[in-house]
């Protein structure tokens, strides 16, 4: 029978892992109260997701870069550049929307390869290479656009940024809930529960499980309620944003890549101890190179989503995106020294920043104060992490 002290110790040790989720919850509840319920209104929830989707997409690539021990300051400029290029292709040249999107992703990959080449094979620190990239691609964006906006974009192109899945044809008075959204949400919940239960069963079989069943159940129930809650809210809007589906697929795929693929393992090994990784036969240069190709493609996708949402490609697009993505990664528990971090953590970190932005806007807080508060949150989140690490390492001694 576990004593109360054991339970307390266990909860304290879990706090570090779930601290970020608790923080998100606290912020949501706080703003829900402060805004008199405006935060969790269906339209606003949909808004938060769409508004932050490009930051979340960038955060996935960024946390991978940070886990490997690098940084990428150029993603905002790259997103703007790709947005501009797709504008040229789709609007100025009149090519079909899918040609523009495909070309945009390829351009992102090439940009990533360019930066990866300098980092991996010439050995210039990523900070320098991507600082240069930030200037280079911002400059190219302005050159391509000739300092003018490109607008409007084809309707299909815009779907990725602002479209919803099979928008309901019935007015709200006839069908209060959008059934495709409900179906998707229930499906996602079932898959999540199945995956968690199966994972736990495998761990128990291998004698690896040290998590009490009650705790597992609490966490699972909580997550399920969360997903169903968001589903419920979204079902009262025009439908599931397409970008949410894209984001969901990205999170699932990249989580699997990071935790189970050979490439993902090599990223953690590279960031955790470069020398040990090299002496284990890992081609760390190739890992670095493909990491930058990857974030190039994700930055391109973010640029396309952003451009589609605004229905215009402008020279100032994507400004400071890199800092939001970096902040999301660190708030989400990534280590500055590399080797630690998760995709889900970065997404949660991104949502914290997103909810803060949205909540403060609803409250009418001016942007200067918003920056100030976001800065403090970043500092405190990392300080909390550092404090936890120090405590756990002194406890181990």
């Amino acid at each position: 029978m576990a004593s109360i002290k054991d339970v307390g110790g266990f909860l304290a040790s879990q706090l570090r892992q779930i601290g970020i989720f608790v923080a998100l919850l606290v912020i949501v509840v706080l703003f829900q109260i402060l805004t008199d319920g405006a935060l969790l209104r269906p339209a606003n929830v949909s808004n938060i997701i769409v508004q932050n989707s490009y930051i979340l997409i960038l955060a996935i690539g960024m946390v991978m870069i940070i886990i490997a021990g690098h940084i990428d300051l150029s993603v905002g400029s790259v997103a703007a550049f790709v947005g501009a290029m797709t504008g040229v292709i789709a609007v100025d040249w009149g090519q079909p929307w899918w040609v523009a999107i495909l070309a945009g992703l390829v351009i992102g990959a090439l940009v990533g390869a360019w930066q990866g080449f300098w980092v991996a094979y010439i050995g210039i620190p990523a900070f320098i290479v991507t600082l240069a990239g930030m200037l280079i691609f911002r400059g190219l964006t302005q050159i391509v656009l000739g300092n003018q906006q490109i607008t409007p974009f084809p309707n299909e192109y815009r779907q990725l940024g602002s479209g919803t899945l099979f928008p309901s044809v019935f007015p709200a008075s006839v069908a209060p809930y959008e059934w495709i959204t409900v179906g998707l949400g229930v499906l996602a919940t079932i898959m999540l529960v199945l995956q968690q239960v199966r994972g736990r069963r495998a761990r128990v079989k291998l004698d690896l499980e040290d998590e009490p069943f009650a705790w597992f159940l609490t966490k699972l129930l909580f997550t399920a309620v969360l997903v169903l809650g968001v589903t419920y809210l979204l079902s009262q809007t025009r439908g599931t944003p397409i970008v949410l589906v894209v984001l969901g697929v990205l999170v699932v795929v990249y989580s699997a890549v990071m935790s189970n693929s050979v490439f993902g393992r090599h990223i953690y090994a590279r960031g955790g101890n470069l020398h040990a990784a090299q002496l284990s036969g890992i081609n760390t240069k190739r890992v670095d190179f493909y990491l930058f190709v990857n974030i190039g493609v994700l930055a391109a996708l973010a640029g396309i989503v952003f451009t589609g949402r605004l229905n215009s490609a402008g020279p100032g697009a994507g400004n400071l995106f890199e800092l939001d993505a970096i902040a999301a990664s660190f708030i989400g528990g990534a280590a500055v020294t590399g080797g630690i971090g998760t995709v889900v953590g970065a997404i949660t970190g991104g949502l914290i920043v997103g909810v803060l932005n949205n909540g403060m806007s609803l409250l009418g807080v001016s942007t200067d104060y918003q920056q100030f508060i976001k800065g403090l949150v970043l500092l405190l989140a990392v300080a909390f992490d550092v404090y936890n690490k120090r405590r756990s390492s002194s406890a181990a001694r």
Partner: protein
Amino acid sequence: MADHILEMRDITKTFPGVKALQNVNLTVGRGEVHAICGENGAGKSTLMKVLSGVYPHGTYTGDIVFEGKTVEFRDIRDSEKSGVVIIHQELALSPFLSIAENIFLGNEIQTRGMIDWQKTNLEAAKLLARVGLRDNPITRITDIGVGKQQLVEIAKALSKEVKLLILDEPTAALNDEDSAHLLDLLRHLKQQGITSIIISHKLNEIKAIADEVTIIRDGKTIETLDLMHDDISEERIIKGMVGRDLQSRYPDRTSHIGEEVLRIEDWTVHHPLEHARVVVDNASLTVRAGEVVGIAGLMGAGRTELAMSVFGRSYGSNISGRVYKYGKEIKTRTVSEAIGHGIAYATEDRKRYGLNLIEDIKRNISTASLGKLAKRGFVDGRQETIVANGYRKSMNIKAPSVSSLTGKLSGGNQQKVVLSKWMFADPDVLILDEPTRGIDVGAKYEIYTIINQLVADGKAVIVISSELPELLGICDRIYALAEGRITGQVPIADATPEVLMSYMTKEKE
């Protein structure tokens, strides 16, 4: 009674789990050059760190009497104020600052907070003249060679009005000419009344310069020999350094030696940065299936450098020579190529080069052979855990589960994780660099048992070790390495510590 500048009495220093020094006594006469000798890990450097305040008063027991007064140094600045200056093996110079700036680093000549450059450079030039260095004081440290850097360190010591100068392996990284110059300088300083303590492995140097030599072994003072008045041979010093009894700390093994697995021929490696410096010099060696081959050598002999350069050129530049596996020449240009040819190298520095300390046991074990566990680019996590659990049991890794972080394990268990990683890679040749460094006796025995198991399975094993008794206890054949050259090859039947030590200290003719 003779005039003693320094007396260290009953110095005992313990680290968690290890007694590094045990009632050590050291008496140094004023104005002499006093040498300290001992094997790697005997406690020489620890003793000097106690003396210079790196380990402050209170972290050791015993008394230090300097200039007739009992002293209690709190840190290096404290000991330097009294005139005790230590020059470490790894020089502590800032590479992009000038010679003069380095000499007065932390001790700047200033007027009202601003550095007086004219006086700084002038004083530096005077000090440089005293150590016989004719370079301009404004030259950057990185632009002068190691030999000259050593002299700058001594000039820095002189600027602090040194009375007792401690040099830790001062000639280890120097060529013959620079070494000779340094020894001359020490004689010169002696005439100026500066006492020095020199730690060195080079017995001919000790004989040439020291008045007395104190021998330390296993953290204890063995004896102090008077080199001025008595006729002491190098063999006599060696006997003092190694003369300990070999207990049965090693599991028995009957050798079944098979065909040659690996042959290295004419292997030459240059320093990665100073391309002119030869670190491994024309070395050739072989190892056969079922054989444990030892490589003995003192600090700086090039043991690790030899091993790492063979293992995918992980060290050095301008590497030349040939590697044969089962008689066929192979290329080992990258680590993955070396692993592909069935070579594994377990590093001497497991925390820096061997493990990802923020990752768990199972992922450390699988990291060199993920290909074996992966299908279409994705790792089979179940299989990975089963493999890791297998090693946890067979290697007796003491940890709550294979999901425990390696950073939280003890040294012995970390080493077992490193060994598991390489055993899972299933190599034909394992190079184990200091496999028992920093781990306790019980875990050492387990590691030896694992080595025996490996050769019983027909693997070839190369063990690099600083501990001669260990090599004598587990090897079939031992190579001695000195200054990058293989100076001898001794079958176990003929090997004694004395024989090996004489090869290990053999100078270039």
